């Protein structure tokens, strides 16, 4: 509880300062609404925002699952051969450094504009791919070299080596990759939704755009609060998972 108190206190002070500044300086609400107006928007638009949050969250989780299967699977395959890793790694880096906004229109063409949610999942997965690929690959190679020799000495099969040595050694790296990828998948989903534009998907990003077009700034901020909360909860969940695994493995 004492760990939560300082950040809560700071948030309250910042919100109070914001509210007072808006009232004293008479800031127009379309420019910057006071927190009280944002709170009202949060309450009034709760059902719509919750539904949109569920949409965005669902797409982000699908993307994360897709990235985990593809990134983890590819890393596993590549870890078996040094040449395969040499061949694949530059491509994976190329995918990572390409801005998702830039490939979004292309993916939209491929999926069709009427399947924008698929495009969002694919784009978010492309963003979440690299930390998972990199985490799994680094982790699989992180086992103690002397333990690797011990497995040589006792004639371990590749499968035994994978299950009994490399995967347990990789788990902390995999979970670290998962934590980063989870955050990126939400960011990727929002960016992809922005690009796919005008209501093709009904996630939080669309709510942001919609409210922005109507200059309903309080509604925008309310959607932003949902996004922020989603990111924090996701981060906390994966963080808890990571800590638990570390305790089990250490």
């Amino acid at each position, binding site marked *: 509880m004492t760990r939560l108190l300082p950040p809560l206190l700071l948030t309250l002070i910042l919100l109070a300062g914001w509210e007072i500044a808006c009232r004293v300086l008479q800031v127009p609400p379309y420019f910057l609404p006071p927190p009280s107006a944002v709170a009202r928007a949060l309450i009034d638009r709760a059902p719509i925002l919750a539904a949109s949050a569920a949409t965005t969250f669902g797409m982000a989780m699908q993307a994360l699952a897709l990235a985990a299967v593809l990134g983890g699977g590819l890393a596993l395959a590549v870890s078996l051969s040094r040449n395969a890793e040499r061949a694949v790694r530059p491509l994976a880096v190329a995918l990572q450094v390409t801005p998702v906004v830039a490939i979004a229109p292309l993916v939209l063409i491929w999926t069709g504009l009427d399947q924008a949610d698929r495009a969002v999942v694919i784009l978010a997965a492309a963003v979440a791919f690299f930390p998972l690929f990199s985490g799994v690959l680094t982790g699989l190679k992180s086992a*103690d070299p*002397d*333990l690797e*020799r*011990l*497995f*040589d*000495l*006792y*004639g*371990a099969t590749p499968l*035994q080596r994978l299950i*009994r*040595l490399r995967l*347990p050694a990789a788990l902390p790296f995999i979970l670290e990759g998962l934590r980063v990828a989870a955050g990126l998948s939400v960011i990727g989903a929002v960016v992809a939704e922005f690009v796919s534009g005008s209501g093709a998907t009904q996630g939080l990003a669309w709510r942001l755009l919609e409210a922005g077009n109507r200059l309903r700034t309080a509604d925008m901020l309310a959607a932003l609060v949902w996004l922020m909360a989603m990111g924090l909860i996701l981060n906390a969940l994966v963080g808890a998972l990571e800590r638990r695994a570390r305790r*089990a*493995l*250490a």
Partner: protein
Amino acid sequence: MAEAGPAAALRGATIDYPGRPPIGPVHLTVSPGEIVALVGPSGAGKSTLLRLLAGLEAPSGGTVFRGVEGHTGFVFQSATLMPWADALANVALPLELSGIPRPDARARAAEALQAVGLGDRLTARPRQLSGGMAMRVALARALVTRPDVLLLDEPFAALDTVTRRRLIDDLHRLWAGRDARPAVVFVTHDVEEAVYLAGRAVVLDGATGRVAADLPSPGVLPRPEGWRADAGYRAAVEALAGALASAMPSRGAT
């Protein structure tokens, strides 16, 4: 009784590493049940020869001979335990990798841990063990397959003197307790440890990695209580220290 062949031997084995002077050729024969200490300056290739004997590395030239199709035990410089597994699972690993069913493997692992004095720490994780205890687990893991060759690569170097001496006496006791004593090759840079532990000490030349001297240790194994005060022990330590000094690659600049 038919004359027994060697447990393991290096016959003119050489190792070429890129960018380093080649090691060897090395001739070394290890008889069944004997304890050999490998001493030499760092860089003389002690650990490399051990890996050759274990079959973990192939020689660039010459041959590595292994006696009967038996097991090899190996203990590294650090305990090298799987941190996510308890002591029992760590010791059972070699058996389970060779396909022995888990209950049997775990039962034998428990016996092996009992033998090294850790019968009450079966479920302890490596981080819950002291350095000496972790090394005992590693020793139990190396012995659980009842190897006929046991290879140890400076296993006790990181431990304090009391723990190290206790472990060496335990190693002697475990070695002597077996009906068919394993051949032991023990890499160390400590001449006192080499004389006390082994029936003979093989000195490797620092420049060429070849065998520079082969000195028998006096007395019987395991060592009787207080043997370190024995004049024969002191003399053997001095002789080995002298042989090691002349095996150093460059004199004067130390």
